């Protein structure tokens, strides 16, 4: 099972991506798999904010965990719609998800 998502890179270019929903992958990992410039330094522990993105579409995302809240409170360039890509698990409800990578 795959869903279609769109990631806008830091140069403003749109990348339509197919994301599997049955591989326990998160958005940071999808970006890495497509070789988009997402570092994922901490490996997905919500501890580095290198996968911060702005969620542009209206999708029912999981609530932020205390760890994600804490990391976003220390990160830079944070906006209302900021999320950590590593905390967004791919599932069917996210068909059509659109995000933009935050500056490094």
């Amino acid at each position, binding site marked *: 099972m795959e869903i279609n998502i769109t990631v806008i890179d830091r140069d403003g270019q749109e990348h339509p991506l197919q994301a599997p929903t049955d591989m326990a992958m998160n958005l940071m990992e999808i970006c890495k798999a497509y070789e988009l410039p997402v570092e994922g330094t901490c490996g997905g522990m919500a*501890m*580095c904010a*290198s996968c911060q993105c702005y969620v542009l579409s209206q999708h029912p995302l999981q609530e932020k965990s205390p*760890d994600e809240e804490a990391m976003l409170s220390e990160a830079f360039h944070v906006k209302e719609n900021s999320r950590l890509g590593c905390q967004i698990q791919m599932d069917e409800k996210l068909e059509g998800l659109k995000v933009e990578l935050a500056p490094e």
Partner: protein
Amino acid sequence: MIKTDIIIIGAGPTGLFAVFEAGLLKLKCHLIDSLAQPGGQCAEIYPKKPIYDIPSRPEIMAGDLVDQLMEQIQPFQPGFTLGETAQDIEKQADGSFVVTTDKGTQHHAPVVAIAGGLGTFEPRKPDLPNLLQWEDKGVDYIIKDPEKYRNKKVLIAGGGDSALDWTIVLASVAEQVTLIHRRNEFRGALDSVEKVQALKNQNKIQLITPAEVTALEGNNRLSSLTINHGETTAEQPVDYFIPLFGLTPKLGPMAHWGLEIEKNAIKVNNSLDYQTNIPGIYAIGDINTYPGKLKLILCGFHEATLMCQSAFQRIYPDKRNVLKYTTVSGISGFDGSRKEAQKSTIKTIE
């Protein structure tokens, strides 16, 4: 000048294990790391998080893995240059290398192994106008000696462990300590959070949350900060502003050493020995790349092992070498220690 057989740049798990494999071949190692303690990311970023894919360890905390590696390599007496960044590398006429750190410490060896992980950890700097202008003139990102702040007015910004820990330390040294954070909640060890709470209750520190520094002012030195606190904006006189927003890895000076770089990693020849395009310089662990590369600690261990065999041949081109098993040969430390399997006794049972 520090002389050794292998200079290892990066004291994370891969670099530490390389000391063991080198030791089995009677090669001495010296490690350089920009962090103040060995362990790399495991010690700096997630010491209290579990790792589940170390063979034979169903679960181990990253910090414990580092401690155990340190114990394992102890017989081979590695040297350490910690808190310094490998800045320059110079190839000598005889093919050996001199590696110099940002503090000027020099290391000389026939082989260099880069086990730099994601690179050098550098402080994350907040996006503030003129911030760079005040570096070393009142803005510090790393606290090296608390005494520097004795009887000074200090403002620390951040919400993690280092902000909390340094607030506690400086509270008894500085004239005034202010801790500000964008949220009311802090992320740190419970003990530290409670200590900071107590200091606040005793009016020994000033805590401003949720708040942010928005501007820096001064003449030759930083002298005051503008703080946004909810609806209000206030000026606060300070001697030092210490933003503690964690560390971020950068490839750093190594990027200019003439090594072949691909996607922020050093290209190596994985079919042989993880040597880079410069003979005598190897790259092992997360810092290297080759077809099929996986950034796993266990792969770093494997790479370190092959690297050491190749390094031995480079250092002693005429010596024959054969792989030995520690169960059979035991371990002879450079410190004179000896570990070996118990010999079975042969005795008649009457």
